[in-house]
């Protein structure tokens, strides 16, 4: 095992050396670094050219420059020495600093998108695998292919037009006309009827209920101008919490486990009490506090499950913990909604909250909630574009993996010994279907930080992709190399992790020592 890892790391280092040499030469050969000055008529043209060639060290041939760069870069290997030197860009800013900034921007952009895409994709994949050859399956398959075929820059422009400009216009006067409300209700009702499955009567019933509820809610929103001053309030949190408690228990323990259901419901009750108790505290929120509160919430859930106990204490603890986390999320969501009018009327936002470019409104001032809302409204469009595009892969892959597992002998055995369908799907099939998905996820996380060049360009986010493109445009190898090294190292490390995870999760697979 250890020899395997060492061998992999040594090969990776050699590959990295070769590829970085190649990338450096290619970047240096990709154009004329002085082109912008050659065209200019500025009186100090020659000085500028001399300064630039001095900065980029153009008098030295590219292969020798690479080794100079390598000497600086190799100092990064010494930990905590602070001697890391990846060169400077044309603005004379150290690449290490530029990289740090760009990395944060890119990670905020892609993290949420990837997590969402994985969660939704895997869920959809499992549902479609369980309902193979149903209307739902065909619908989702078609959507997956459609999203897979969409050019992201096209989606991005559409989203900007309809998601941002259209929605902002709507927010100016958030009244939903009655036909629109009925139309949206009917569409969602139809979707619900397709998802529901079962016999036509059950489908019609579920579809009808969803239609009625959605239409009523939309009319209520329209009448009360909810979108101006959104909020959930304790009542909605309570109702949603009970619903979540049932759903979580159904998935984690099964409704027959009354103790688990009890602990989940108690968690909702505690959450409602906490809703009132915690409001003053939330007014002074910081990011760290929210994280600590989230951990505390989960711990409270675990404690509730432990106290309620039951024949399977672990299941009670799990369902209570998940439920309390979700209720906590609802409470935070409610607080965000309370901050919405403040954000909406902010002098910098001026009533057009959904932004089309950038990562934050320049010079915005406000408390934690306003600033977070600001980055949220900036992230929502690129995130939805990325989710749409990358959803398809996960859905298809999970579906295939799940179908293969559902055909295995041990699933038949599990059914034969009389386990409930929930246990068969969630315990036996789902966990094993996750093994190949885990490797794909590791790969994608490895490719994350370099993976959104076009999205960053379209939404003007100054992340890794921007740095990379900027380097190419100025024919400056340093930023290009910085981005390349970061991307390549993460990709290789996560490839290794993917392989190791596969052999750890599936004992039939052994890595070659």
């Amino acid at each position, binding site marked *: 095992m250890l020899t395997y890892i060492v061998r992999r790391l040594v090969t990776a280092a050699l590959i990295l050396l070769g590829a970085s040499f190649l*990338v450096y030469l290619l970047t240096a050969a990709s154009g004329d670094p002085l082109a912008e000055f050659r065209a200019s008529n500025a009186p100090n043209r020659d000085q500028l050219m001399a300064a630039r060639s001095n900065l980029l060290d153009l008098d030295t041939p590219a292969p020798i420059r690479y080794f100079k760069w390598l000497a600086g870069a190799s100092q990064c290997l010494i930990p905590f020495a602070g001697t890391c030197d990846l060169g400077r860009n044309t603005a004379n800013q150290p690449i290490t600093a530029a990289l740090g900034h760009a990395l944060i921007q890119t990670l905020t952009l892609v993290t949420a998108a990837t997590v969402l895409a994985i969660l939704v994709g895997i869920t959809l994949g499992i549902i479609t695998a369980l*309902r*193979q050859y149903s209307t739902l399956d065909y619908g989702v398959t078609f959507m997956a292919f459609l999203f897979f*075929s969409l*050019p992201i*820059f096209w989606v991005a422009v559409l989203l900007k037009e309809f998601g941002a400009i259209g929605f902002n216009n709507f927010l100016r006067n958030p009244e939903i006309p009655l036909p629109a409300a009925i139309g949206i209700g009917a569409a969602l009702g139809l979707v619900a009827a397709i998802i529901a499955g079962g016999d036509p009567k059950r489908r019609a019933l579920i579809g009808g209920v969803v239609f009625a509820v959605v239409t009523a809610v939309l009319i209520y929103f329209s009448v009360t101008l909810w979108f101006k001053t959104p909020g959930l309030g304790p009542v909605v949190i309570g109702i949603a919490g009970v619903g979540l408690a049932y759903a979580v228990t159904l998935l984690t323990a099964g409704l027959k486990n009354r103790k688990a259901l009890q602990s989940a419901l108690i968690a909702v009750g505690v959450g409602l009490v906490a809703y009132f108790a915690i409001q003053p505290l939330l007014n002074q929120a910081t990011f760290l506090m929210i994280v600590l509160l989230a951990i505390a919430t989960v711990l409270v859930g675990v404690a509730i499950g432990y106290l309620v106990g039951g024949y399977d204490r672990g299941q009670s603890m799990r369902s209570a913990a998940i439920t309390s986390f979700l209720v906590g999320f609802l409470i935070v969501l409610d607080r965000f909604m309370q901050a919405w009018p403040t954000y909406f009327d902010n002098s910098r936002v001026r009533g057009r909250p959904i932004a089309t470019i950038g990562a934050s409104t320049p010079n915005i001032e406000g408390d934690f909630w306003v600033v977070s809302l600001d980055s949220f409204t900036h992230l929502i469009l690129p995130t939805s574009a990325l989710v749409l595009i990358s959803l398809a892969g996960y859905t298809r892959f999970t579906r295939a993996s799940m179908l293969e597992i559902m055909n295995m002998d041990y699933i038949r055995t599990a059914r034969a010994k009389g386990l409930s369908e929930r246990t068969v799907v969630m315990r036996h099939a789902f966990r094993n279907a996750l093994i190949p998905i885990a490797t794909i996820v590791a790969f994608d996380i490895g490719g994350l930080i370099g993976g959104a*060049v076009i*999205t960053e360009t379209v939404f003007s986010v100054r992340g890794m992709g921007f740095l990379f493109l900027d380097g190419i445009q100025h024919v400056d190898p340093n930023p290009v190399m910085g981005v390349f090294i970061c991307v*390549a190292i993460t990709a290789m490390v996560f490839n290794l992790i*993917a392989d190791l995870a596969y052999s750890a999760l599936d004992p039939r697979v052994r890595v070659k020592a």
Partner: protein
Amino acid sequence: MAEQAGLQHQAAAGIEPVIEAKGLSQGQIVRKRFLGHSGAIVGLAVFAVIFVMAFTSVGYAGIPGWWKFGHETVTPLVNDGAPTSSVWPLAWGEHPFGQDRIGRDLFAMTMRGAQQSITIMVVIGLIAGLIGVVVGALSGYFRGWVEAILMRLTDVIIIVPALLLAAVMAQMANRRDEAGWFASFASTNGVLAIGIFLGLISWVGLARLMRGEFLSLREREFVDAARISGASNARIIFKHILPNAVGVLIVNVTLTMSAAILTETALSFLGVGVKSPDTSLGLLISQNQDAFSTRPWLFWYPGLFIVLICLSINFIGDGLRDAFDPRQKKFNARKAKGTGGPIAPEKTPVAAMEGTAVNESAADGTAAGGTRGA
């Protein structure tokens, strides 16, 4: 007899009986399955229509087409450039897709762009398929140092960003003053150059897959039998192993091709792909993205054609995958539940065994999802 009855009984439980394998060659089975896949057939039909329309309307390689405008022809604006086609009454009109700001016909430009995309796709498919097969076959069959060198080469190419290579190539193509053969070739056949170049870098996923196939196939008994009968290495590779790996190859070439269309449009969008005055679907969108509020049709039609081409190729690929996959059994959860559990008459072999499987599944993943530059 008892065995047969047992098989039939099992087949009733959730899995459609496999009757198609009786007395049919592999080609016949594949054809039959493919023709039975409605999505693939629709995809094929849509692609055929687009193909014929794109290549006959504005002409190709000097042969004039039936459409009255070329993609560079400037004509006076009709109806302020808005599309003149209508569904009811059904009519083409003078400019069915509208015109751009200076009066070029969008239908002609879109057809020209579709031509470019299809050309690039085919070139990439051919080159990537060829190199991928050769590299994968050599490294998978001979192993040893051949494999070590070729696989390290693929590793290097996989991590070099395609965008950088495209930028380098675009730069080289632009140096028209230097009379290099590459520069003169690229300036006259810009699209072909991009296709060749993208083909030269997109074979890596295919090579890894083919290596995996060869690694598992070379251990099979029929290869031993061929070797004992005195077959040469070349004969074993081409006559015995390759026909067995052709399914994986075709499916993944198709998927590479659909990803290649998106890559080309993305590169053109970023300004390192097809350059004006020639046009491509990605370039059209890039040029017109700011005009969305005033002339939305300039944005809709090229995008629609990208999606249509890519979608139909993906459906064809899906149909091919279903047709080639011998493990494909129609498992029906609802039926299985009704009769008390799904039973596979032939057990699906466990796909993952002993190390190499990790690479295989990994390569699978990159071929499916990793090749698209988001």
